[in-house]
């Protein structure tokens, strides 16, 4: 019989016990009502509180990771539970100790993979990503390294340079009009940028699903590629990439990580403020804005997208404030659509339902990964889902 003190769960619990008890002993559970998975399932085993309580049980030898690994699938990584938790919101900055459910979920998923406990969909997804260097986003049609820059055909963008535009797998292979819009807008403003020499997936999805070694290997490749080309600045249009480059990469590379990361939506708002971009073509739509979770909840970025929308003539904008949107989500993150597409669909239906209550014809998003499930849900209610960058391009008179 293995020594109970040598169990991997015991070692894991040593790292996470303070966080777990911080949650478990508080018990206020404000997280439950802002959690998108809880909202549509009411399953207490899938609540942020349960995710922490399990660590207490692991420490006491009552649980092995195999017992609960499947529960940890049920998280989109949206960060609502973290920001709404009083231990973050009211005391996190004071103690420099906040609730980190998203990191905990990733860590448990990583522990499960280490122990050989796999979720079948995630295992296949990451295996294909490893083979192809990009996520298998084309529903059966293989993605291909040779086609990663096809979205930019005809735009005559250089390779390399001080600033490069990184395009996530969904946008590079599926939502190609989004990066094309971004490229056209930046060119219109006279902002110089190029493309990466040999772009691989950022590695963020592998990290989210527990495949840490793969995530680090992909990150290493991308950083080496940037350095080899003399890249100093990476422009990011996808909120998921932005998280990966500003949270995962710093953890992997520490002080050696010297690349500037710029969020495109913030850059565009700045270019409008400076008068380098002036939206002038009226866009006659009645819209509301979907705050991408990774911008609003996890990064506190919510003003700039609204600045852009308010600069577009012709729009009738029914805004819902950022705090109300802490409980909104598309369900498209954290690998949930890979393992449980039915849950993603329910969460998206709920989100589009909120938009329908406002009487809008368009839901504007700024996240390529949210747009597929939201569009599916929008069709049933005759609500268009449009990307913010595309909308701005239209008002600037540049077609993708």
């Amino acid at each position, binding site marked *: 019989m293995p020594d109970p003190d040598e169990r991997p769960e015991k070692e894991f619990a040593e790292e996470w016990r303070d966080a777990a008890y911080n949650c478990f002993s508080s018990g206020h559970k404000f997280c439950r009502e802002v959690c998108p998975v809880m909202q549509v399932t009411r399953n207490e085993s899938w609540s942020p509180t349960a995710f922490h309580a399990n660590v207490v049980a692991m420490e006491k030898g009552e649980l092995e990771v195999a017992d609960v690994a499947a529960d940890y699938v049920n998280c989109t990584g949206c960060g609502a539970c973290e920001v709404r938790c009083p231990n973050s919101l009211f005391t996190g900055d004071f*103690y420099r*100790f906040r609730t980190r459910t998203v990191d905990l979920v990733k860590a448990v998923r990583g522990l499960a993979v280490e122990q050989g406990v796999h979720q079948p969909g995630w295992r296949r997804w990451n295996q294909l990503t490893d083979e192809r260097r990009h996520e298998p986003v084309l529903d059966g049609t293989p993605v291909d390294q040779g086609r990663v820059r096809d979205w930019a055909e005809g735009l005559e963008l250089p390779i390399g340079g001080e600033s490069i535009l990184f395009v996530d797998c969904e946008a590079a292979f599926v939502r190609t009009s989004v990066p094309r819009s971004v490229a056209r807008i930046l060119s219109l403003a006279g902002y110089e940028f190029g493309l990466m020499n040999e772009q691989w997936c950022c590695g963020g999805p592998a990290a989210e699903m527990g495949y840490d070694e793969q995530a680090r290997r992909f990150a290493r490749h991308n950083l080496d590629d940037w350095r080899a080309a003399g890249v100093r*600045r990476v422009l990011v249009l996808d909120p998921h990439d932005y998280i990966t480059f500003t949270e995962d990469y710093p953890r992997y590379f520490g002080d050696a990580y010297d690349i500037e*990361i710029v969020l495109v939506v913030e850059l565009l708002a700045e270019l409008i403020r400076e008068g380098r971009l002036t939206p002038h073509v009226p866009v006659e739509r009645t819209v509301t804005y979907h705050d991408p979770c990774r911008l609003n909840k996890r990064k*506190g970025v919510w003003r700039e997208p609204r600045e852009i929308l308010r600069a577009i003539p012709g729009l009738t904008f029914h805004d819902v404030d950022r705090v*109300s949107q802490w409980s909104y989500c598309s369900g498209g993150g954290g690998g949930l659509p890979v393992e449980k597409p039915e849950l993603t669909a329910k969460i998206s239906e709920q989100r589009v339902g909120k938009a329908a209550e406002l009487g809008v014809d368009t839901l504007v998003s700024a996240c390529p990964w949210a747009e597929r499930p939201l569009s599916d849900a929008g069709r049933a209610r005759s609500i268009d889902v449009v990307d913010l960058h595309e909308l701005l391009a239209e008002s600037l008179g540049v077609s993708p």
Partner: protein
Amino acid sequence: MTYRHQEEMSPPPARRVTDVAITRFEHVYEVEPALMTEHVTQQSFPNWDTLRLVRSRADHLAWMHRHFAGKVISGEELLHDLDE
């Protein structure tokens, strides 16, 4: 905001406020770090994360007032009411 790792991991110098509290950003107070070395140790906290929480707290409190407060009264008024 442009993310630069070195800048994010270099907080402004601390100024002592009391025996148990310091401040690094205007109107933002932190526990004296020496008190967080034994039972619960502090986490790595980039500057953006501190400011995100501070701003989220202000936004949340304003949201609570908009949704649930009929009027805002001072603590002094509350104490006065209790005394009567």
